[in-house]
């Protein structure tokens, strides 16, 4: 756990997404929980195979959007009816239909910002350093190969047994990941 040096985990490389999916299911079924799968594009069912089936992100975006809408609306009411009321032809100062457009635009703006920033925050990005990048072959994870990593922190992790388990899944290669 202390700085560099030591084993972070083992990494298995696969050529096809079906193999990765099968491997993820198998390793999860064996009781490993500190497992991560890497793919060059979203693979349907992969996160589910690792036991993650949903994300809180929609709620973050909903909260952001509502904040934008309410904030925008009350900003306009405050500006036009409270802080600087102008009586123009006896029209109401808090003429809400005129405020809908800006409230709507701000709902979109805040919703959109919370979608991107929420995604990054929940994913723990930006993350300049991660041990998997120490494996040179991992550069292919953003191109055409699929990887499965089992971390040494996992209570079930055993260098030999875990390697044997991964080897049974017919990977193209197995690599040690240094911290």
């Amino acid at each position: 756990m202390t700085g560099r040096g030591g084993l972070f985990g083992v990494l298995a490389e696969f050529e096809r997404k079906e193999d990765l999916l099968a491997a993820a299911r198998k390793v999860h079924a064996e009781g490993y929980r500190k497992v991560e799968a890497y793919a060059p594009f979203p693979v349907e069912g992969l996160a589910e195979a690792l036991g993650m089936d949903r994300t809180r992100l929609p709620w973050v975006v909903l909260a952001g959007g509502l904040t934008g809408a309410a904030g925008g609306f009350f900003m306009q009411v405050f500006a036009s009816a409270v802080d600087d009321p102008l009586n123009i032809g006896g029209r109401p100062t808090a003429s809400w239909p005129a405020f809908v457009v800006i409230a709507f635009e701000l709902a979109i703006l805040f919703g959109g910002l919370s979608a991107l920033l929420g995604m990054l925050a929940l994913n723990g990005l930006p993350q300049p350093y991660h041990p998997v990048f120490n494996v040179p072959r991992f550069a292919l994870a953003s191109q055409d190969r699929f990887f499965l990593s089992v971390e040494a922190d996992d209570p079930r992790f055993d260098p030999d047994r875990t390697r044997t388990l991964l080897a049974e899944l017919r990977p193209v290669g197995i690599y040690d990941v240094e911290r």
Partner: protein
Amino acid sequence: MTPRPPVVRPGHTYASVTEKISAVVLSGRMPRSWTAGAAAGLALVLLFFYAVGLLFSAGIGIWGVNVPVSWGFAIVNFVWWIGIGHAGTLISAILLLMRQSWRTSINRFAEAMTLFAVACAAVYPLLHLGRPKFWYWLFPYPNTMGLWPQFRSPLVWDVFAVFTYGLTSLLFWYMGLIPDLATMRDRARGRFARAVYGFLAMGWRGAARHWLRYETAYVLLAGLATPLVVSVHTVVSFDFAISILPGWHSTVFPPYFVAGAIFSGFAMVVTLAVPLRKAYGLEDFITECHLDNMGKVMLATGLVVAYGYLMETFFSWYGGSRYEAAMMADRLGGAYAPAYWGTLACNVLATQALWFRAVRRRPLPLFGAALVINVGMWLERYVIVVQSLHRDYLPSAWHMYYPTVWDWATFAGTIGLFLTLFHLFVRLLPSISMFELRALVPPAPGEARG
């Protein structure tokens, strides 16, 4: 039903898709057409700087604007550019929600087009302010004058709409780029390039849990961008429709403007796609099928626009307002009639060629149609702004509008700005979304489907 043709030509693998698209940037090969295009763009940017510099020192008087046509080229070009932007968001958001997988080959550069078009559009209202250094007065901020913007004004709505639109498009584009930036980081050879791509990719490593949140965020952003696209051009049309000027005060404006925006935007996507696929040999990814689909969208939106023209004419007769009727008579036969008939010739007549498969599926005829439509949509905005404005209720206020050489120079300058930005984009970032295209690669023959 016959199966749909594949979006990517057969024979590609994950590796070949990645290789081919990233090579456009990483190989360092610069086709002569790129150099020529970038040089032309840069020359026009210089003209732009000169024209804007002169405007700042001499004032708005160097333009042809006057009373009553106080909105001249600036607003014509603003509406034209912002309309062009719409196809990019339409492709990335609405077609994504509708699960149209053909969008994948064109969404990245269409989104870039949106950003650059919005940047060009935003230049005009700022210059038109007369005192551009006070542009931030349009935003609500606590100030010593104790003043707020007039939130009931469509012009202030426009500020919020366009600002939101620009920023949301940027978010969408950047988010779509993150996984591809990681690919560029892993493939780039130079230290500097690796550092820059790596910084922008923020340590993306394609973990399954990351992808799940990523896809959720992408769909949510698309869901937000879809009503945004419709709202932006609706708000732009409010700038006109909420006034009481004959020729502007019309309820058909919001839908008609939105359709026109998509129409001109798709024309611009075609204008960019045809040379792009030719210059870099991307015919495997931007296939005839894509050209065909874009042609169909242009045809459909063109017909909506034609309906808008018809209804405008019909209302001015059926509405019984003599001022509306006089405006329409002037539009059909007055001083600006050539611009109006030109609009009809480009947008209604020429568009009918898109009924033919042979036109839609061949790059050159389609490119020609797209250019004609771009001109036609510009003429349409010219007619709406200038012709409606030059004659209102009082004959004593009637006046002609003549664009000056500086109007034209500024317009040419923004085209140059757009060209330059687009050429830089093609050289520096993958112009087709690699990770989305990988997911569409058909399984190799003999390989079982998962």
